[in-house]
């Protein structure tokens, strides 16, 4: 079925020039973003940039564009790859030539991706990942889908089993649009709201300046100058802005969730679990049970009401950029149960839940002091002498959150798995890991904890550090001994 010959050097699709150009232009803009902003600002203020007129600017921009285009063309000409025997060869570089050789057996993953531009011109991007360094990742940014699939097959041809497995694929889970919308709507918007609020707040001070300059006062001036306003009007204005922000935040997380997870599909192979998702940026990931180091199950109050859970995975030997896509949203309770058992065979959900010591309460109380001070500070700015009334809300709220943080904190251990639960009033999280994949264990104890015989345990796997917070010192030691015993006596591979 292989119509493509990879024995001789082969280039990317000619459309690749466009993709490379777009990538380079994007990189250029991203790198010089602050500089460009400064220029744009100076342009709006004075109509010139450092005394250069508009025509000069256009010529400069055209020059940069032409340079990038020529560079893209040369990169395209100098980018060839072929397969010789059991090795994949790639040569790149315009001035600095680079020849990369990878043995087929060392290739861990071949991803086929497609971003918006690549979808429009109908090409795909192929990423070849090897074990080890993140920098050894190879990216072929534009070839036709057929060629990409042929290449993938050719690269995996050394491993016959891999292609056979593909025949027993079954779609295990598919997220409907309704589920995605529900997921997006039930996101914790509070955090993103404050980020946007801070962003707008920063812009506002700059905007005010610009508004004055552009003489829009005659239209909006009354609205923007709050000093001249009555208290009531100011409140009205602020609540209108905050109301608009809430709507914007809500829509943004909704759109983001749907775009990132569009057409989310989970396929269960015999050996791996394949995830595909994304509208503009299609990604396909494969989960290999032996390489999974940590699993996290997340939900929040609203999501739980709708029966929605998110499962996130930390897998060893995955490039940083890919790592953040390793999650599945919109799973139901049964699917979570199935996946947990599929990946962590024999994981017991009904073990006795051990709780942190009371010392944890004190730590949480101390941690909420800054929040308490900040809320009082803001209240003083707003209500002056009546500032203390904020505490009628703030103190019960902080205690309420604290109560739930305490209630949701627990850990369970059996001879194979360790799991740690945490969360606040809204969110709930459960982290799970296989004990035999632990890399190292430490006990941390501060001066104050020592006097109370309290300690925390830090457990490292290859991808993440998890903490069992504030248990009795002798328990901490016993847990450390037990975990080490399990790792050292079983002598199982961590990957």
């Amino acid at each position, binding site marked *: 079925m292989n119509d493509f010959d990879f024995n001789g050097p082969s280039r990317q699709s000619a459309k690749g020039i466009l993709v490379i150009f777009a990538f380079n232009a994007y990189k250029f803009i991203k790198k010089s973003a602050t500089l460009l902003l400064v220029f744009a600002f100076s342009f709006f203020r004075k109509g010139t940039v450092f005394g250069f007129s508009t025509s000069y600017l256009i010529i400069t921009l055209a020059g940069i564009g032409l340079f990038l285009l020529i560079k893209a063309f040369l990169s395209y000409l100098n980018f060839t790859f072929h397969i010789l025997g059991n090795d994949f060869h790639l040569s790149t570089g315009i001035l600095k030539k680079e020849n990369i050789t990878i043995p087929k057996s060392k290739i861990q993953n071949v991803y086929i991706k497609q971003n918006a531009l690549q979808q429009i011109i109908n090409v795909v991007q192929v990423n070849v990942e090897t074990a080890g360094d993140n920098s050894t990742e190879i990216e072929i940014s534009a070839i036709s889908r057929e060629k990409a699939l042929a290449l993938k097959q050719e690269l995996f041809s050394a491993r016959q089993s891999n292609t056979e497995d593909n025949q027993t694929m079954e779609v295990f889970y598919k997220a409907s649009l309704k589920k995605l919308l529900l997921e997006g709507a039930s996101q914790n918007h509070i955090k993103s709201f404050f980020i946007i609020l801070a962003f707008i707040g920063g812009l506002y001070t700059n905007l005010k300046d610009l508004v004055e300059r552009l003489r829009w006062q005659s239209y909006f001036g009354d609205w923007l100058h709050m000093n001249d306003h009555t208290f009531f009007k100011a409140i009205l204005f602020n609540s209108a802005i905050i109301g608009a922000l809430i709507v914007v935040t809500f829509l943004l997380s909704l759109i983001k969730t749907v775009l990132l997870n569009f057409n989310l599909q989970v396929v269960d192979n015999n050996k791996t679990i394949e995830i595909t998702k994304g509208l503009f940026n299609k990604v396909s990931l494969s989960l290999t049970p032996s390489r999974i*180091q940590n699993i996290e199950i997340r939900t929040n109050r609203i999501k739980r009401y709708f029966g929605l859970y998110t499962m996130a995975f930390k897998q*060893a030997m995955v490039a940083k950029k890919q790592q953040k896509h390793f999650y599945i949203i919109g799973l139901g309770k049964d699917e979570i149960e199935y996946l947990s058992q599929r990946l962590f065979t024999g994981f017991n959900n009904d073990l006795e839940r051990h709780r942190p010591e009371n010392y944890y309460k004190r730590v949480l109380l101390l941690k909420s002091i800054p929040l308490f001070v900040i809320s009082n500070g803001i209240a003083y700015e707003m209500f002056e002498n009546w500032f203390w009334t904020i505490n009628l809300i703030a103190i019960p709220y902080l205690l309420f959150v604290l109560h739930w943080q305490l209630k949701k904190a627990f850990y369970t251990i059996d001879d194979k798995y360790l799991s740690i639960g945490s969360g606040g009033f809204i969110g709930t999280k459960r982290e799970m890991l296989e004990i035999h994949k*632990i*890399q*190292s*264990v*430490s*006990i*941390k*104890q*501060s*001066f104050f904890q*020592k006097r109370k015989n309290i300690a925390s345990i*830090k457990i*490292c*796997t*290859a*991808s*993440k*550090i998890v903490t069992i917070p504030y248990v009795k010192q002798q328990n901490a*030691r*016993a847990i*450390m*001994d*037990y975990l*080490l*015993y399990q*790792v*050292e006596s079983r*002598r199982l591979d*961590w*990957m």
Partner: protein
Amino acid sequence: MFRNEQIDIDDIPTVDSVVFEPVSKTYLSILIVNRVSICIAIYLALFSIKLVSSNNLISRYFWVILSIVSAFFIINIIIVILGFSKRGYALRSQDIIYTKGLLINDVTTVPFIRIQHIEISRSFIARKLNLATLNIYSAGDAGDDLSIKGLPFDVASKLNAHITNRLNE
């Protein structure tokens, strides 16, 4: 042959009973020299700012800043000296344990079967004082790698040889 007997929790070897080997006493001098040189650098910077101009924030509150820096420095040195006795390592048949820290004490254990590689590094002063640092790397980005500082060079070499041996088994 697969076996799966029940384990008596009391039979598990415990970290509690190990005796930690202290690191070399000369290492304390390196720690102190490091801090003194940082402090001198800050003093020099402060004085030169004061000399160059007298009309800035630093020059106006010069003595306040100087005493804060000095107090911080003295406390830091005291903590380093008091905490020095907390530094120690222990070699067991299956793993290596390292402990340090006065205010926040940390006991870390890395099993030999999880060690990826191991190396000895020596700074300029360490070479003069015949000291060495043993770095032990486990897998992954998140792995918090052990680095046992202030070992006598021959001890570091011995540990290195022993652990390398264990890794190749």
